[in-house]
């Protein structure tokens, strides 16, 4: 038998490469503060060693005419295919983020490393919607008491009559000094309440999650109820060679156009209706998927 096959199919290679891969990964997650070791030459070296070991071990079994169960080949070839898929994707994949505000359009994405890529079509953000499980609403919480925030409503708390003057879900002050809503989202909720003190009408703004202005006058706190987000969706217009197409992208529901897959990966509520889309072209991800399927079938046959 070929010396090369004998050398690389040795179980010692598996032992050494496995131990070093485990040690390097433990080091990487716990101690390493710099660049990840998974992209280092020595990590790739041990992965290559493991790859060759699995490959030649399988070849050796075939050469020696050892009758191995079918699952043995499925699992081991599956692992090799996954590694090949990862390597090819790592080399050829194009992936980056596109940040769009409502009515913005672009064909530029930025990778994690800051590299810029142009995709072959433009994407315009027509709309961005946050879907909640229930309708969120503001409340004022006191000692064992809750009051719905409705403008114009009055209520008595600890012997003081309060009136809800105004509610803003994203409180900001504009250039003229007016208090306005910056976005429709609950980024900085605030409620203005008024009350009488020494026959004089006082007004205060209460902000959610912050100590209230003139706190000593009230222990009322502003809270937003039912703020659980169910989903967020971007409605996009794809503009390609003079043609336009509308599409919706939401979490766990990517959209594919040409070779590019568009994922809804984030949003920035501070910027109002704005969406973070991850756009990826990876023609080799199918190889990784095939590897996973081979391993999956292999382990099922193995356990049966």
């Amino acid at each position, binding site marked *: 038998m070929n010396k090369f096959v004998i050398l690389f199919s040795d179980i010692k290679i598996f032992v050494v490469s496995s131990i070093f891969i485990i040690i390097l990964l433990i080091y990487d997650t716990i101690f390493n503060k710099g660049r990840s070791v998974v992209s280092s030459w020595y990590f790739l070296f041990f992965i290559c060693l493991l790859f060759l070991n699995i490959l030649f071990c399988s070849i050796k079994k075939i050469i020696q005419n050892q009758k191995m169960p079918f699952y043995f080949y499925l699992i081991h070839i599956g692992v090799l295919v996954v590694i090949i898929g990862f390597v090819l994707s790592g080399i050829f994949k194009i992936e980056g983020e596109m940040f769009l505000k409502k009515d913005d359009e672009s064909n530029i994405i930025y990778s994690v490393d800051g590299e810029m890529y142009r995709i072959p079509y433009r994407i315009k953000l027509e709309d961005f919607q946050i879907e909640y499980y229930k309708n969120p609403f503001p409340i004022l919480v006191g000692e064992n008491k809750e009051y719905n925030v409705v403008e114009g409503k009055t209520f008595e708390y600890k012997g003081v009559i309060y009136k809800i003057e105004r509610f803003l879900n994203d409180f900001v002050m504009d250039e003229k000094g007016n208090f306005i809503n910056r976005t429709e989202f609950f980024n900085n909720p605030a409620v203005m309440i008024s009350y009488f003190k020494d026959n004089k009408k006082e007004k205060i703004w209460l902000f959610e999650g912050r100590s209230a202005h003139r706190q000593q006058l009230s222990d009322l706190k502003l809270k937003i109820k039912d703020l659980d987000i169910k*989903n967020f969706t971007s409605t996009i217009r794809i503009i390609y060679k003079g043609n336009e197409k509308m599409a919706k992208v939401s979490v766990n529901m990517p959209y594919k156009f040409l070779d590019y897959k568009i994922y809804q990966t984030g949003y920035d509520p501070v910027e109002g209706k704005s969406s973070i889309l991850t756009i990826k072209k990876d023609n080799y991800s199918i190889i990784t998927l095939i590897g996973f399927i081979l391993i999956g079938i292999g382990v099922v046959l193995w356990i049966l």
Partner: protein
Amino acid sequence: MDIMINTSLGFSILAMILYIFYYLKNFEFLKKISLYFLIFSWFVTLVYLVVFAFKLTRIPLSNQYESVLILGIFMFAINLYYYLKNNRKIEILIPSFFLSPLIFSILNILEPSFRPLMPALRSNWLFFHVITAMLSYSFFIIAGILGFVKLFEKDNENHYLLLKMTKIGFFMLTLGIITGAIWAESAWGRYWSWDPKETWSLITWFYYAFILHMFKKISKKNFYIMLFIGIFFIIFTYFGVNYLLGGLHSYV
């Protein structure tokens, strides 16, 4: 709701104490009582799970509290299955006797959340991913504790029983990693992000792959020691990563 977990905690502590007494004094009747107490504590927990799921209107799989609950039920069910299959040797239930109070204590410390699923978790993959991961942890933990117990026993039978548990644990872990990777691809566009939880799952996978490959080449004692050490990999992957390293999986 709390009263059910507290009841389970109380009965599991009683079961553990009675088992210790049985072990030290060999009072046969204590063996049965301890077993009944243990079964009762998990029966109450099962009822609690059903009530909890009804309140949530979903299967509880989305945070640490919910996964610990599922993990505990899986561990006991697996342990009970092997107990019934192996001539009802009470020693096989040692993992349950000693882990049950711990699990119920953790459930007491953690707060249940009645919040609905966050957007990223609203996927059919959640069920398969979490169930396979929790099953793998359960098999590995039981095998590890039984391996530890075997270190102090003279007869080393059940060697293959522990191998079988390890194999099923490895099978489940493999499926857990694959389902997680496929889900990640549909949610974030990549199978693998080298997130600490993913990395530690891979470390654990390598570790158990190593044990399974070395099984015929190492002594039974070393096999048991390696299984026991494996528990630390599981605990770190499950708890340690969340509290020390964070990442995309920090909520589970």
